[in-house]
């Protein structure tokens, strides 16, 4: 799991590379959770995530809920078709704001 964090204006852009499962989820939590501050804007770039397991989805939802609790905003960008479908039928997708690409994601957070 590789995680690249950059900042565009006031938006934290987190690029996740690799699968998110029970093995890698703790790394995601460790690195992304500290970004959640009051009013923070977080963009998770999922373009290079091919697979998310049950634990992976739970990790993202937990971070999302924490952001919500702090009046923050979180957007998922570039979900591949299978990941999006899995999230849809398991009920995770409806909790998130998603966009197709980075540009739209940044716009959604501005």
């Amino acid at each position, binding site marked *: 799991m590789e995680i690249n964090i950059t900042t565009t204006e006031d938006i934290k852009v987190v690029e996740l590379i690799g699968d998110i499962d029970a093995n890698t989820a703790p790394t995601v939590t460790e690195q992304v959770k500290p970004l959640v501050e009051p009013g923070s804007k977080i963009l998770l770039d999922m373009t290079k995530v091919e697979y998310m397991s*049950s634990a992976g989805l739970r990790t993202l939802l937990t971070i999302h809920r924490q952001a919500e609790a702090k009046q923050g905003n979180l957007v998922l960008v570039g979900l591949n078709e299978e990941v999006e479908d899995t999230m849809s039928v398991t009920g995770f997708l409806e909790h998130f704001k998603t966009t197709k690409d980075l540009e739209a994601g940044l716009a959604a957070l501005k």
Partner: protein
Amino acid sequence: MDRIDIHPTHSYEGFKLRSGKPFPFGATIVPGGVNFSIFSSHAISCTLVLFEKHEKKPFAEIPFPEEFRIGNVYCMTVFDLDYENLEYGYRMDGPNNFQAGHWFDSSKILMDPYAKIIGGRDVWGVTPDWNDIYHHRARIAFDDFDWEDDRPLEIPPEDQVIYEMHVRSFTRHASSGVKERHQGTFAGIREKIPYLKELGVNAVELMPIYEFDEFENSRPNPQTGETLYNYWGYSTVGFFAPKAGYAATGKFGMQVDELKSLVKELHKNGIEVILDVVFNHTAEGNENGPTISFRGIDNKTYYMLTPEGYYYNFSGTGNTLNCNNPIVRGIVLDCLRYWASEYHIDGFRFDLAAILGRDPWGAPLANPPLLESLAFDPILAKCKLIAEAWDAGGLYQVGSFPAYGRWAEWNGKYRDGIRKFLKGDGTVGDAAQRLQGSPDLYAWSGRAPATSINFITAHDGFTMMDLVSYDGKHNEANGENNNDGTNDNDSWNCGWEGPTDDQGINALRHRQIKNALAMLMVSQGVPMILMGDEVGRTQYGNNNTYCHDNDLNWLDWTLLEKNADLFKFFKHCIAFRNLHPVLRNPWHFQNRDYVGSGYADITWHGTQAWNADWSDSSRTIAFMLCGKHAKQGAVEDNYIYVAMNMHWESLWFEIPGLPVGMNWHVFANTGATPPNESWQPGTEPMLENQSGLLMGDRSVAILVGK
């Protein structure tokens, strides 16, 4: 603050361990590790066997230290496990003595009866590796689904309209129009929620969805070579796990979330979920069946055994779960509580439920502890409990199932009585009882009309279209020389066996289906419709399609267009029932006027108003419901008059008069030429002649007085 029990106290070959907690049974994620707990009354030792997902060989075998055993429960916490990539099982050692009922064999790896996810049949129909040492593999589930504010709907039972369906059959057909990867799955049902809403049902009853093995007794069809499966799934492998092969995400092990998401979405749309549960036997079969779980863990406790050590077979499928043994009772109760609380399930239909009232030697109990426990359980308190009140051992309890004020029954006598009346056998007296919610069966013991689950067709037996297209069953495709399936179908082919181009016969068949549905929807009690009857689904005369993964079971969605008249009629009749509380009374009729309307709550008529013909040769009956008696007078409704002419000739029916100022309107008349055989409720045209109605041969009319 960290817990102080997160530190291991023992180690075994590099694994860190600690004495576990006996409750809850099964495998539970705890801080730092997984707690494993399993009971056996007769084992002398137990070993935990751990696999990485899909691996042929275990990566660890950890014997439970004797000091970790509490009573008959082996419990242990194992730390630092990759629980998402884990499959676990047990080896149990103990006596192996057939006559004594003990089948311990430590060479077998046994599935946890409390497994919440079961791998091994992750994708429907993928041929298993028969040499696998562990076929049905226990896995660990998350129990933190985000339900938000969802909870079971608690629709009053008399207000329900149940749709009995098979998960795979509903959307597997290419014509279903759902995404290919969702066909035949929970996700597929979710896509079809708008259809269910349009139809108007408010409960789906899912045929078994607990993990089962579609390859149990699988064999080639002698005629076609096609594989015959355990397709319906009335043979449970694990009672706590949803069928992986029914989930589009089963290959990722996410069936738990997919099913919960379906339940949540159905609830959002006002539709309850009832599960068809099979506690009477398991997939381990008879003496020659596979050892999966129970048999190797505690055979003598879980199964009813003869004094010689053989399996009693009250289920007709090889073995019988020993439901009134206190241990087994416990697991059944744990199971239902789990589904009610963890999956927000609204109700349960118990397959061959009469078995649940037998003692460990098979004798029927007057006061069966299991049925009583379920009826009074605090978590199940608002769940619908529905019994299939008979078993394959000859115990028939329709009308006498031990109910404790809670249990409803699949009313087999409703099915038989209405079918006979429909095909013109007369029997109007019996039909009248069925239309009223079977007070002859239930009123005397203080049981409400909603005790009666009214159905004319169900998964067992003919579909509605086949009921009016075949005189006899045609089960050759099952490979048992047409010997399987019931012969008591009370069906009539309307003049030709099977499909025909004869327009007259086809019109009569459609009319008979509408007659049947009209009767079902004006009956007091709870109506249940079989999936596909609303579009005329056929099984080509096969009345026992338990083994077919093909067109014999799959719903062909092109029928929706072909038989659009049926669908419209079903939709109208369901909407009519939902609109009129007088059809959904919570208590039986009293045959008197107790609100001062001048009319009794129900009155009976025939070709002459106020003069029903109850004779043996009668094939006509009509009744009127007084709208001021709706819900025992608690709400006001219109008056409703229903005339049924099951004679082969047209007959003039004189209609009872309404209170001054009201007029009869025609909601439905199956004898009318389509599309005028039914109207959208609320738009019914006024009847031209308010004193009478010419009823065509074999037709039903429903009038509404307002």
